[in-house]
């Protein structure tokens, strides 16, 4: 199995994702420059956090028009696994690979801290090794993470069990205080209808070692690696 980490000008969590895959998942991984168009070598692609193209115009908007994103769409269409973290989630929404949009945080400024999220479904390639209802401590670091979507999309996400993570308190209860950025229905992460594309605002790659305060993020990468191993 082989991972690719997409690098846009302005990506800055690319090295962190690379580190986790090579060091903690122990699998081969390449950086993929934004002008590349051939993803055939990869089984899973990570769109990392950062400020792609400076986040000018709108977070993730310019990246969605880059050459590599056209290939990521094809890749996802063929069933390839795509994980978008933070800016990666914003890019997936801007590209139409995931529905909805991420707008300015409710309190308007950038927020960096550990938050709790509840695993809402284990029926995804990224969460099957976790428990439903399990509470994970993961850092967020974003100014635009407030998830919004129209009612129709919202119903679709719910009826198709596509809300993967919700913000909650340490006991697993979701309420306004724990909804860090004001997201609709506390949504922290969603997947595509085919369930092979996941976008989330928290940073699981920053939570793979106790030294950094939490290793709760490693379950996502473990799940994905197990999925890839089974597929092959």
């Amino acid at each position, binding site marked *: 199995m082989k991972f690719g980490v997409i690098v846009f*000008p*302005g990506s*800055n*969590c690319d*090295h*962190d994702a690379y*580190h*986790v895959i090579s060091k903690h998942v122990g699998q081969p991984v390449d950086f993929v420059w934004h002008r590349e168009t051939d993803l055939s070598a990869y089984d899973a692609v990570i769109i990392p*956090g*950062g*400020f792609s*193209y*400076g*986040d*000018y115009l709108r977070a993730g908007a310019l990246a969605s028009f880059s050459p590599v994103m056209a290939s990521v769409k094809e890749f996802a269409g063929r069933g390839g696994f795509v994980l978008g973290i933070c800016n990666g989630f914003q890019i997936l929404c801007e590209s139409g690979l995931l529905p909805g949009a991420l707008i300015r945080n409710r*309190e*308007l*400024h*950038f*927020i*960096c*801290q*550990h938050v709790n999220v509840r695993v809402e479904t284990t029926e995804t390639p990224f969460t099957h090794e976790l428990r439903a209802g399990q509470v994970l*401590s993961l*850092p967020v*670091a974003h*100014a635009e993470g407030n998830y919004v979507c129209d009612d129709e999309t919202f119903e679709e996400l719910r009826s198709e069990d596509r809300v993967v993570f919700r913000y909650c308190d340490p006991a697993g209860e979701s309420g306004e205080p724990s909804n860090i950025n004001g997201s609709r229905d506390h949504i922290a992460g969603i997947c595509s209808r085919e369930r092979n594309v996941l976008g989330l605002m928290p*940073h699981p*790659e*920053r939570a*793979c*070692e106790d*030294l*950094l*305060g*939490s290793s709760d993020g490693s379950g996502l990468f473990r799940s994905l690696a197990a999925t890839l191993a089974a597929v092959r």
Partner: protein
Amino acid sequence: MNPETITPEVVAAHNLTSEEFERIKELLGREPTFVELGVFSVMWSEHCSYKSSRVHLKRLPTEGERVIVPPGENAGIVDVGDGWCAAFKVESHNHPSFIEPFQGAATGVGGILRDIFTMGARPVAAMNSLRFGRLEDPKHGRRNRALLAGVVAGIAHYGNAFGVPTVGGEVVFDDAYGFNPLVNAFALGLVRHDQIFFGKAAGVGNPVLYVGAKTGRDGIHGATMASAEFDEEALEKRPTVQVGDPFLEKLLLEACLEAMRAGAVAGIQDMGAAGLTSSSCEMAARAGNGVELDLSLVPQREEGMTAYEIMLSESQERMLIVAHSGRERQVIDIFRKWDLDAVVIGRVTGTGSVVVLHEGQRLADIPSKYLTDEAPRYDRPMKPRDGGERVDDEGFAVGGGIDVVSPAPPTAPALASDSGLQAPDSEVDFNNALRRLLASPNLASKSWVYRQYDHMVRTNTAVLPGADAAVVRIKETRRALAMSLDGNGRYCAVSPREGARLVVAEAARNVVCVGARPLAVTNCLNFASPERPEVMWSFSEVIDGMAEACEALSTPVVSGNVSFYNETEGRGIHPTPVIGMVGLVEDVRRVVTQGFKREGHLVALVGTSGEDLSASEYEATVLGRGVEELIASGARVPSLDLGRELAVQRAVLLAAEEGLLQSAHDCSDGGLAVALAECCFSSLGRGALGATVTLDGELSSAATLFGETPSRVLVSFEESQRTRLERIAAQAGAPLKVIGRVGGKRLRINVGSVEHISQDVSEFETIWRDSLGDSMQAEVIATAAE
């Protein structure tokens, strides 16, 4: 645009004295051209030449076995083992941040990051030291809050997008900074020992390349110039503060490091203050070479720029690279990959002179040493402030009069009426005093600030903001770097020399508290006008105090910056040296944090307490005594015994390295009671923990609880380790006394047999956590809406 003649008015408008102008003519043996006058004026400015501070700065210790690059380069560098080196520096951006807080602070961060990657180091951590007027000031509170909100947003904007974690620093509020806020930015980068680059124009014949953003008319020093030489309209349109683009800087970083790795770079320097002028002149001077530049080739984003404007522009995100001959194509290709300009604009010559050509004309030809080594140096007059620095019976320096008066004393009502410290304990509500200290913006949690900074990107931050020192691990090794940024304007106002010693000692202690050995120092020296003898005296005193402490603690100064003229309408800031201390953690798994860990652990104080309430946070916040009152009343700062300090640090470090400590926390602002409360507060993964502590009653209760005796560290440990710990402390020559135990939900502090403090930790914590955010609530909405 060039004036035909250089009149005395033109010279004065360039901030050069008539003596300095005569000296220029003498050196050149002729009248300078207009471009040359501009070049001299910036290179001989206080900012670039350190003309008032240089004679004093040389008294600082700069040598040590780990020092790889001492002061003089873009950043200092120390060896941190396994072939790795740390490059770091702190620099001020005070004036721009007052004019335009968001961009002023943002470009301050941009500038310091470039200083680091110029050396070949990838920035891995940033910190900042911020000082403002009081948020609750009845007259200026709104402005002070707006400045804080703007500065924090600017730092966040730049650092977050660039991708460097902002891991620590300090935020202080005091009337003295109301019209002169301080924004000092620190950055640290990692570089392999054999991959360090220098700002040298090495190799005659080598091409000089301009890389990065295009040059515009922003930030030209001539903004201060009288009108005759410039078109009025152009002047009005010119912003005085540049606009930073962190995205561009991120690309510049990656391109520069790639070009360096490729082996194409012979020397490199960022275009910071004074832009192309300082980078080219300094690079030439360091190598003893000359450079010849053709300004017609410089990428420009505005039309019709003159040579003068191009030389003095301070457009951001630009670098000057001297490439190895024949490798220029490679450099250009690498920068093109990152969508950046890279253009050969000249070459290194053997003449020793900086030659500037523009549109076929030769507009400047100056031996580079005239601009650097031959720049003026002043030993400015000094005078102790009125009444002088007296020495009291015990040999402690005490304050005399004061030349700088803050506009108004804090309005907080005195808790114990006018009798102040003498109030009998029975009349003082110490629970309430502690609550007020925890709520005061200087001591309250700064999470409102650091939550806006991405402090975890790069996944190396082993100790998060809010601690005594931040810790950033070095992924390739088992080691980590600890760093702390500290100042204390109040102490330095009362006694500049003693204050400076205390600041250095505290910075080192902070680093020790996380389990790191202090290695070296960078400093940012913020002062009022050097032309006032009292200010120059305080500067000299601060240098001597710093030198003594750095010498004693074996932490040489490897880089720094001086910021003078922090005064408005004759009112200056406190003398404010800010110390950036960097320490080395040998094993990142042995890092110690400040929070108590478990019920039943013993709590001990390493060091001893004295009657040190004078000039304390308690006096300022609870008793409402302003600095001018302190000085007038002959207040003194706590006395620091550097031998004791070293012993305490040695004991804590040895215990930490042996893995004996469950927690360690510096006891400083707010004293023992505040430090104990902070140890009890909740942290990632654990709720609040109580503690019961009994302190002996030899001192006044207020001093016991809130005194700020230096050289004290609060530690907790398992009872089974007590004997080993006591032995380590005894060997190090540091007093250690067990004072209590972790447990329960309340913080109880007895002094002698009297329980002075008893309250639910969560109540203290709520006050402490929400205070700053509550004061800023309205401001955030207003700022974001703008």
